[in-house]
């Protein structure tokens, strides 16, 4: 049995899956299996995975009717045999030394259950956008997870099987296998999982330096659906609050402010200035934490939202062209 498993949830990912699988097969840590979970795709996703398996026998394909990202990850976990399980969505890429780094980290830090790294953001063509998620790496508490989600995205963590087992459960409606991610969530399923692990187990969450994941962002300017995102975040809070009401009483306002600031940034990117303005104003009325803890990011969000709301898209276009000119 391989020591490490990488679970790749894939839904209609034919355009990006080849690059994802190539980056996983090229991992310098060799003792691995790659479990591709085809989540009911209607495109060439399963064929691409099967073809890749003929070149790399460590690849396995699991197929299911569409259950969503959480359901695909859960099926992948159930099929995985490794002592550690990494996750890489079918549009993201892993740096060649990513798995090696996390395996070494977990071996050296026996109290750490989730090992993660920062991520570089890439566009639909796989070009680096010059942005990165560079989260806090050490002394991560549940409050950090709740407010800033240092794990960052679903292709960043490599998780000890024992930690996954500690939060697994079997809902009454489920007959086949356990749930680790909550399949009733279509968004916020990552943060719900990490926060639940923080609040109900004694496993540590810790990062390693470096941008070891390339995380693809949709830059096509489609609607960000921030209202649905906010609703699922609120549902997560409602679900987990009874676990530790005191914790939520202390950290909920700041965490909600950070969430609203994030949604404001999404709305700015999507060109929805009015929504962005409403979110950032609401954020700052809830908590000063984003201003005092991360003044630069908060002020730029506020400025972008307010200027766009007053002057339309011109300021953002100017800022973007300035930035690309500076980068040369």
């Amino acid at each position: 049995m391989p020591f490490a498993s990488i679970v790749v949830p894939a839904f209609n990912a034919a355009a990006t899956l080849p690059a994802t699988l190539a980056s996983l097969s090229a991992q310098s840590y060799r003792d691995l299996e790659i479990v591709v979970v085809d989540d009911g795709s209607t495109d060439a996703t399963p064929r691409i995975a099967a073809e890749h398996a003929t070149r790399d026998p460590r690849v396995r394909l699991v197929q299911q009717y569409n259950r969503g990202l959480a359901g695909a990850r859960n099926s992948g976990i159930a099929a995985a045999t490794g002592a550690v399980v990494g996750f890489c969505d079918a549009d993201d890429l892993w740096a060649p030394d990513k798995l090696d780094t996390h395996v070494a980290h977990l071996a050296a830090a026996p109290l750490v259950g989730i090992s993660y790294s920062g991520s570089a953001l890439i566009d639909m063509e796989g070009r680096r956008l010059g942005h990165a998620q560079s989260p806090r790496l050490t002394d991560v508490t549940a409050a950090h997870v709740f407010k800033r989600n240092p794990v960052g995205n679903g292709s960043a963590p490599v998780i000890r099987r024992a930690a996954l087992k500690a939060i697994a459960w079997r809902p009454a409606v489920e007959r086949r296998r356990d749930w680790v991610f909550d399949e009733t969530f279509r968004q916020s399923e990552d943060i719900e999982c990490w926060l639940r692990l923080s609040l109900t187990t004694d496993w540590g969450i810790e990062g390693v330096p470096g941008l070891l994941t390339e995380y693809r962002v949709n830059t096509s300017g489609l609607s960000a659906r921030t209202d649905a995102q906010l609703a699922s975040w609120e549902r997560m809070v409602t679900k987990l609050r009874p676990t530790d009401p005191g914790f939520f009483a202390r950290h909920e306002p700041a965490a909600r402010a950070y969430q609203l600031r994030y949604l404001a940034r999404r709305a700015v990117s999507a060109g929805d200035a009015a929504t962005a303005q409403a979110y950032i104003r609401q954020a700052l009325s809830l908590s000063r934490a984003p201003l005092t803890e991360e003044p630069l990011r908060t002020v730029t969000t506020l400025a972008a939202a307010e200027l766009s709301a007053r002057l339309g898209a011109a300021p953002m276009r100017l800022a973007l062209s300035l930035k690309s000119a500076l980068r040369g």
Partner: protein
Amino acid sequence: MTRPRILHLIDDTTPGGITRVLDHIQSCPQMARDARHVVQVVSRNRALPRLSADMIVSHLTIGWRFLPALISFRARHATTPLVHVEHSYTEGFTALNVPFRPRFFTLLRSAYALFDTVVAVSPTQARWLRDRKLVTRSNLRVIPPMVDLSGFRALAAPTGRPRVIGAIGRLDRQKGFDALIPAFRALPDRDVELHIYGTGAEEAALKELAGTDRRIRFMGHAPSPEAAMAAVDLVAMPSRWEAYGLVALEARAAGRGIVAAEVDGLQDSAAGALRTVKGLSQADWTAALAAARTLPAPEDRATGAETRFARAWSDLITQHCDAAQAAAA
């Protein structure tokens, strides 16, 4: 040969699980057959006295400030077998109460190393102690706690659809009754009541949560644990952490169905529960309570539990006292 004298040290004399277990140890005829069990109350704020016994069993709460006293006690009882029973600490406790885990694990590892044997009160707790490398495998035993269950077994099993859901225990954050009350209130059924037995710091807050729902009743302290159990049909245990969970054992002995949180040792003590729930989400608990009302209570009655408990202690005593004698010879 005279029966060995076993000295049990406690620092917590408030009525509750540990006190009741020690009452049982002192009064159980099966326990008395192989050893004389004596309980001594000690203060956590002073040095521990020099004591004489064939084996000394700590039921004390480990803490940093207590560690020097424990080290000194070990030094003064170098040849007496020392056993510690871990009644408190679990993974769930650590998750919700210990922000900085490495320091806490160092404390436990240091304290446990002073004892010849550490007794876990549930298999799940034992696995945690082992996985966290707090106790070596050879120094670890599992002996779930015990009380006299005869009074619970004497109760007639409830008949018909359960009408009274019982929440029995200290009104403390640990017991999770604050999560149970909203879940119960969301039950549409009119023919069901929630009876809460116990007192504690959370009482006012819990009454606030119960609001005007007349189906919820605060019963205060029951005259006896058996009396509380007799008055309920189904037992709900939404604990946030639980090294063992005696109420679940008593509910089994009484033939009452259980709805329990999937946490720590409660997973062992509530074995055969009608429903278990991971976490305290209100929706999950409401669904579990509703489902449990439609299920027949199991009839296991925890048969033979007292005998297993007495035998486990007898084995441990024999092992240590034989070793001490061999060393002395």
